């Protein structure tokens, strides 16, 4: 019971420190911007640890963070294999194929108002197909290895990316288009010099949404059939074996990889769309 009370104290202390930092004079510095979420995360971990111990939560329900950390450290090689299989092959492969296919499709679709009108509602419809239904079908079509996972990812990221890119290609203002017109610019000139740069913020929006979709898609697809390696495989197998610490170690990998992937795309966005007001403000 003391541990539970301690957990409460830790929570209050963490919040208090953050409140001081966030409302303090240095709140706008990079360091504080990083420190505050880190402190928040650490507080949660500590509270978690204390609650699990204090309330005697069974290991098979929720392991303590320290146990997860130990498991993580002990299983680096397995985690790496799983990561390579699921993220590097399945998620990344599908992400690249899906996003580039959507990008090219968007450019084709953009040429015809008719196609755009027709395809977007259909696209939104297809995007609503739940992954738990599509994954078994795609496993049946593309086999057990990472190809089917990549296919699931392609299906998941294609339409969000398409919709965003199409919206972005329409982003150039009427005036900017007219300007190109007064130059008697060709279709490709106005695409390359005007509409693509103007579309970039939207394209990146699509790319960012797709990162998390790709990750989740690749992992979940493994629940429906896989070789004996991969994060989804490991998670489902470990649950069956009550190795919950391993499950959480994989989840940590997923969260790390996802945040890194997202951060990478966000950094790229910052570099390429530095001129956009949303980036300049930050």
């Amino acid at each position, binding site marked *: 019971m003391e541990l539970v009370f301690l957990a409460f104290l830790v929570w209050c202390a963490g*919040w208090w420190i953050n409140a001081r930092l966030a409302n303090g004079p240095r709140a706008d510095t990079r360091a504080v911007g990083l420190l*505050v979420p880190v402190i928040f995360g650490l507080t949660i971990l500590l509270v978690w640890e204390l609650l699990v111990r204090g309330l005697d939560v069974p290991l098979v329900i*929720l392991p303590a963070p320290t146990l997860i950390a130990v498991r993580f450290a002990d299983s680096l090689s397995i985690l790496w294999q799983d990561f390579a299989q699921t993220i590097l092959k399945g998620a990344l492969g599908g992400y690249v194929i899906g996003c580039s296919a959507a990008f090219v499709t968007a450019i084709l679709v953009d040429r015809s108002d008719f196609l755009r009108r027709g395809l977007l509602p259909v696209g939104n419809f297809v995007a609503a197909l739940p992954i*738990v239904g599509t994954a078994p079908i795609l496993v049946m079509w593309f086999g057990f290895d990472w190809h089917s996972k990549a296919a699931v990812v392609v299906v998941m990221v294609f339409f969000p990316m398409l919709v965003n890119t199409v919206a972005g290609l329409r982003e150039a203002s009427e005036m900017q288009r007219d300007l190109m017109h007064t130059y008697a610019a060709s279709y490709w000139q106005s695409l390359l010099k005007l509409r693509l740069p103007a579309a970039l913020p939207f394209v990146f929006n699509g790319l960012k949404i797709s990162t998390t979709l790709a*990750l*989740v898609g690749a992992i979940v697809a493994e629940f429906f059939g896989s070789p004996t390696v991969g994060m989804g495989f490991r998670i489902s197998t470990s649950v069956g074996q009550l190795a919950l610490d391993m499950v959480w170690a994989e989840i940590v990998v997923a*969260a790390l990889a996802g945040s890194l992937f997202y951060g990478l795309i966000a950094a790229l966005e910052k570099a390429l769309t530095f001129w956009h007001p949303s980036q300049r403000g930050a």
Partner: protein
Amino acid sequence: MKTVVAVLTVVAAIVGLWYLACVPMNIKGVLDAAERAGEQVEPATARERREASALGLVAQNSFAIDRVWSVDRPRLPAPHQVVVELWQTTVMKKITSKRSLIYHAQVTLSATLLGFAIGTGLGILLAVGIVHSRVMDMSVMPWAIVSQTIPIIALAPMIIVVLYSIGVQGLLPKAIIAAYLSFFPVVVGMVKGLRSPDHMQLDLMKTYFASGNQVFWKLRLPSSMPYLFTSLKIGIAASLVGAIVGELPTGAVAGLGARLLAGSYYGQTVQIWSALFAAAILAALLVALLGLIERVLLGRMGVKA
């Protein structure tokens, strides 16, 4: 009107391609069945056919082409098979029947709506907190993004078990998974919306010496409505996926998720596809409904939609 024509054209094109795709996808199954029925096929054994390319098989066994659209357990069911199945499991069945898709859709719908309500409520609360408190903004927002990189489906069984262990059963566990998926778009959209009033509008409130509450109710909330609805539409679709996912580890007793699973379990491809389409149709209906509410509400508020 123009849109309807365009959509119909695109749908027609897709259906056409779909029918075409059935040929190479299903040819092997058709030939296996033909072989078992004693017909002459080329090559003669399943083993050899396994290595052959689908298109080659089609060319060598053109007599079998018309059968690819009426296979019992197809790799890719023909569109009309899915439509017939949808028709028979919706219109032709009593709504109370366990074989009625409408019955299952309604089971999923209740979890979806409950989850959506929880997720939206939570999302709005978080957004309000984030907009009003710098601490919340700085500490919670990054973790909200991280939370979306966690494969919820991996967590779903554990969530369900944990909830079981504290005595929560039935609709709520599924709804919680649905809520987990739907809260994020709401937070993001609502934060954007609550921050959408510009400096001038906020300054105007200052010159009136308005209280924080008044600024919220008279300025921030109304300005956020268009953003809110955009994210609600994303949120409800996510919520539906969540409810379906949540149905798998709750014993998959009823609901579209259970149908998907059962279809998959028994190799009933047509049943999978019809459940899949039922889910997408349900999502489309929900989004359309939200769009309608948006139009009415924002129209009444005077905001041009």
